[in-house]
C-alpha cells in the first residue's frame, strides 16, 4: 500500500494554501469512496491527501433564490433526503438513489462523484440535463464552470491542479420535468452499463445526457427541432453523438441498443410528467 500524508483542513483558505503548495502531489479527499480504492489498487499514489470534510461551508445544502446549492462535501444520501428540492429535479434524486449502495452513499459526496469524472458517473447525466454549474476556488479566485465544460476526458476534469470544487449549483427547472434511468448488470449495487437523463423545459426544449457511452458523460441538446414524440429522429441524433466501446461491463453494440432503449423510456416518462 502506498503511503501518504493526511492533511485535515478546517477552512477553505487552508485547503487552497495546501493545494497550491503541493499541487500535483496532492489529492482532495472528501468521501474517499473512489480515491481510497484507487490508492489501494495502486492506480494513484498521491503524497498528500487534503481532507476537506471539516470545512463547514462545503456542507451547505440549500435553495437560494431558485438555485439549489449543493456544497462539495454534501453526501449523496443527504441530497436524497433534502426536503426542499424544487419540483422537476427528479433526475438528480433518481440518479442519486441508485448510485452505489446505501452504505457508500452515506460517505460518497456529490462533488466527489463528478470530480472523479468516471465516464459512468451516475450524477453526470442529471447535472448535464439540469444545466448545473460547478463553483470552484483557488488562490487565484473563484469561478463557475458549466457542467458540460467540466468533464474533459476519462477521469479528467478541467479543474486546475490548485483548484477545489466548492459547490454544484442547479437552477430550478421552473415548470420543466426530468428523469433518470440506469442499466446495470444486476438490480443491486452496480456501476452503469449505460446511464441516461432527460429534461424538458416548460416550453418543450429537450436535453438528454448519457454516461458510459463516451470518454465523458455527454449532453445532447440539439435535436434539429424534433418533437418529443418523434422517437426515431431523436434516437438518430443520439446515435451520432455517442461513441461507446467494448469493455468488461458490456459491448459497444449492447450499449448502443441500451441508449436507444433508455431514450425511449425516458421520452415516455418525460411526456407523462409534462402532462401530469
Amino acid at each position: 500500500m502506498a503511503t501518504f500524508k493526511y492533511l485535515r483542513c478546517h477552512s477553505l483558505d487552508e485547503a487552497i494554501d495546501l493545494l497550491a503548495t503541493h499541487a500535483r502531489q496532492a489529492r482532495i479527499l472528501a468521501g474517499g469512496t473512489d480515491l481510497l480504492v484507487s490508492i489501494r489498487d495502486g492506480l494513484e499514489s498521491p503524497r498528500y491527501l487534503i481532507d476537506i470534510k471539516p470545512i463547514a461551508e462545503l456542507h451547505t445544502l440549500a435553495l437560494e433564490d431558485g438555485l439549489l446549492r449543493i456544497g462539495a462535501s454534501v453526501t449523496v444520501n443527504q441530497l436524497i433526503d433534502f426536503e426542499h428540492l424544487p419540483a422537476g429535479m427528479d433526475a438528480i434524486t433518481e440518479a442519486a438513489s441508485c448510485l452505489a449502495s446505501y452504505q457508500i452513499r452515506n460517505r460518497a459526496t456529490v462533488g466527489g462523484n463528478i470530480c472523479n469524472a468516471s465516464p459512468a458517473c451516475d450524477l453526470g447525466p442529471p447535472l448535464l440535463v439540469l444545466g448545473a454549474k460547478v463553483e470552484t476556488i483557488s488562490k487565484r479566485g473563484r469561478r463557475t464552470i458549466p457542467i458540460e465544460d467540466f468533464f474533459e476526458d476519462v477521469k479528467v476534469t478541467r479543474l486546475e491542479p490548485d483548484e477545489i470544487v466548492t459547490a454544484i449549483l442547479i437552477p430550478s427547472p421552473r415548470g420543466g420535468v426530468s428523469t433518470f434511468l440506469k442499466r446495470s448488470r444486476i438490480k443491486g449495487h452496480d456501476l452503469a452499463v449505460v446511464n441516461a437523463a432527460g429534461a424538458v423545459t416548460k416550453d418543450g426544449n429537450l436535453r438528454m445526457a448519457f454516461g458510459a457511452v463516451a470518454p465523458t458523460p455527454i449532453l445532447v441538446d440539439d435535436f434539429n427541432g424534433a418533437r418529443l414524440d418523434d422517437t426515431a429522429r431523436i434516437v438518430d441524433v443520439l446515435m451520432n453523438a455517442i461513441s461507446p466501446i467494448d469493455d468488461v461491463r458490456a459491448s459497444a453494440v449492447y450499449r448502443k441498443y441500451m441508449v436507444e432503449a433508455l431514450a425511449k423510456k425516458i421520452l415516455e416518462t418525460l411526456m407523462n410528467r409534462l402532462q401530469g
Partner: protein
Amino acid sequence: MKDDLIGASVARIDGIEKVTGSATYTADMKLPGMLYARMLLSPHAHARILRIDIEKAKQVPGVKAILVGADLPYRIGLYMVDKPILAQGKVRYEGEPVAAVAALSGEAAAEAVNLIEVDYEPLGPVMDAREALKADSPLVHEDLHTYKYVEGVFFPVPHTNIANHFRLRKGDVAKGFEESYKIVENEFYAPQVQHVPLETHATIAHWKPNGRIEIWTSAQSPFAVRNLLSVALGISHSRIRVVVPYVGGAFGGKAGIHLEPLVSLLSKHAGFRPVKLVATRTEEFKTLPCRQGLDARVKTGVTRSGRIIAEEIEFVWDAGAYADYGVNIGRASGYSGAGPYEIENVKIDSYTVYTNKPFGTAYRGFGHVELFWAIESQMDAVAASLGMDPVEFRKKNLLRPGSITITGEKIVEHTGNVRKCLEQVAQEIGWGKEEEAKSGKKKLRGKGIAVLHKAPAMPPNTASSAIIKFNEDATADVIVSGVDYGQGTATSLSQIAAHALRLPLEKIHFVWGKDTEQCPYDWQTVASRLTVMAGICILRAAEDALNQIRSIAAQALGVSKDDLDLDDGKIFVRGDRSRMLEYKQVVMGYMFPNGNSIGGPVIGRGSYVAEGLTNLDPETGQGLPALNWTYGAHGVEIEVDVETGDIEIVKIVSAFDVGKVINEDLCRGQVRGGVVQGLGTTLIEQYIYDCKGHLLNASLTDYKIPTAKDIPRQMVQILIETPHDKGPFGARGIAEHPMISVPSAVANALFNATCVRIKQLPLSPERVCLALKQQSQG
C-alpha cells in the same frame, strides 16, 4: 416428552453470536508474537521463471522469512497430487503465488513482496479446454506422468493436458442411435465462476520448535487439512493440530487444503513464530480456486413416442492450472451425468483438462450445476423437437422403482421420488396455463422446468464419528468434526441429539470450534453429507450413552435394563413412574446412600463408514458410487424485457425429496439461498479474460453476485418426505441441490417465452438482448 423436535423450526444456535459480532473467525484472531504474510503473485498466465532475486526484499525492516518455490519441494493433493505450494520453475496461471514473505506487519511484508525481482519468459497460455485437448497444444503440466494420484479411480493421460478421463458405457449406444426416431445434438457452455464467501481464506499457523504444527484456519474440513499436510510434508498426523473456528462461508471453496501449507512453512522459516495470512478479495478471485468451466456436447436419441433410447455425452471440464479436485468433479459428473432418467444405452466421456486459468474446486453441486445446465437444457430441446410437452417428456423417462441407473444401480422406493418433485413443481407453477405479461407488450412471459439429482461424491470408505459427553448437570456436549460454515447443520444435529437423548434442546451444547486434537474424525464437510453421516453417528453415540445410563440406573434401581424408560432427562421403572432417577444422578456415576459408587462419567461414541459403495469399473463406470440420491425439480416463471434483455424471475418453485425435514426453516433457507446462488450463475456470474489469460474482473466491482434487490419476487419451497433407509429419520442431504438446475430451468423459460435457446451461461441481459435482436433480424 413430546416428540416434536424433528422437523421443528428451531432458531439457529449460532444466531446470537453471529448477529452480535461475538463469533470469532480466523481473520479476527491474533497470537502473541504473530507475523503477517503476503504473497507475490504471477502476472503471467503461463511463463517460465528464469530468476528470482530476494536480496532487496530481505533488507526491509521487520522481514522474518521469504520463501520461493525452490525452498518448498512439495506437492499437495487429495486425488491428484499436482500442486506445488509456491510455483516451481514455471507459473501456470495469473495469480499463482511465486513467493511469500512473513514480517512484523502486513505493510512490511507487502513492501518486501514488491521488492522481490522475478524474470519470466512468457509462454503461450492455454486458455480453452477444447484447444487444450489438441495434440499440438502446449502442455500445462509436462510432468503429469510423474504425479501421484489415486490409481484405479482416476485416469490421467500422460503427455497431454488430460488430468482425468472418466468413461461410462451402458448398453450399446450405436445401436440405440440406429433405432432412434430422432437424434438431437447440442453443445452447452458454462464459464468459471467464484464462490465469493463473505470471509476470504484465512490461516494462522504456528510451527513450534518441538516440531509440532498448530493451525487455525477458515476451512471446511479440519481432518482433511491435517491429512493432506501430513502426507505432503511427511509429518505424523499426531504432530499436527488443526482448529477451525467460525467460518464465514465456504460453498466448497474451502474444501481440502489451501493456504495452510504455505503459512506453516513461513512460520517454520520465521524462527517458529506464528504467521497469519488473510487472502485479499483480489487473491480470492485470482489466486484461490473457483468453479471449473464446462463445455458439454450431448447427443440424444429418442423414439417417436418420446422415450430416450440413446445418449452420448462428452464433458470437457476446464480445470484451470491444477486439477486435484477437478478430477473428482469430472468423475462425479460422469457417473451421474445423464440425469435422473432411465436410458438403456449411454456413453459418457468426462475429461478434466488443464488450462492456464485459476484452478477449479468443489462448488455447491460439485459439477452438477454445470452438467444439469447442459442436460436439462437438452431435455427441453429434445421435447421441443418432438413437439412434446417438456413435463410429459420428462415423466416418460424419469427413474422409478425398478429402474437401473447408468452405473447399474437399481432404484427402489426409498431411493426417493423425482416424479413427485416434478409433478408438484409443475402444479405450483401453473404449468400449461398461459400468463399474460402484465407490464406491456415489450415483455414476454414464459415458464420453464428442470429436474435434478445428486449423491455425495466421496470415496467409498468415507467415515464420520461423534462423541457425546455429559456434564455434571446432565447437559450433553455433542462433538463432531463437520463444520457448520453457514448451512445450519449444527442446529439440526443438535435437534437430532436432543431427540435421541430424550433431552430438551437447551440441554444440548453443540461444541463449536473444531479441533483435530479434541474432536472425533470426520472426512470432510462437503457433498451434502453431514446431516446424514454425522446424524447417523450422533444417533449411535446417543444410543451408546443411553445404554450406559440404563446400565447404571438398572443397578441403582435394582431392576433389569430392559424395564427402564427414558424421557425428558429422567429414567423411570416401567409401570411405576415413582421409581425414578434423573440423568444428573447417573451421568457422572451413581452414588448409593452409603457412598459406594458405580458407573462413572458417561461418554457416548458413534461411528459410521459409508456402506456398500464400490469403486467404479475403469472401462464402463459400472458400480455403486452413491450413498443416497437427493432428487429435486425447479419450475420458474419469468418475464423477459425484449428491449433490454432483462430476465425478471416472477416466481420460482423448488421441490426436493429430502426424506425427512429435520428443521423446516433451515431447510427452506437452504433452498432459498441455493436458488439465489443458482440465479447468480444463471444471470450474471463469469470469469472474463483477455487473450493473454489476465482475469479482467477480479473484484466485486466487475464480478457481480445477486444482492437483496436481485432476489425473485416469489420463491416457493416444496419439501417431499420419502424416507431414505439409511439417513437419520429418513433424511437426505439438501445443501447443494437447490442451486442445481436453476440455470436450465430459466433457460427453458426463456425458450418458452421467446423461442430462443441460449446455450451459453450466463443469460446476462446483454446476451439475451443480442440473441433476441439476432432472432428478429434473422
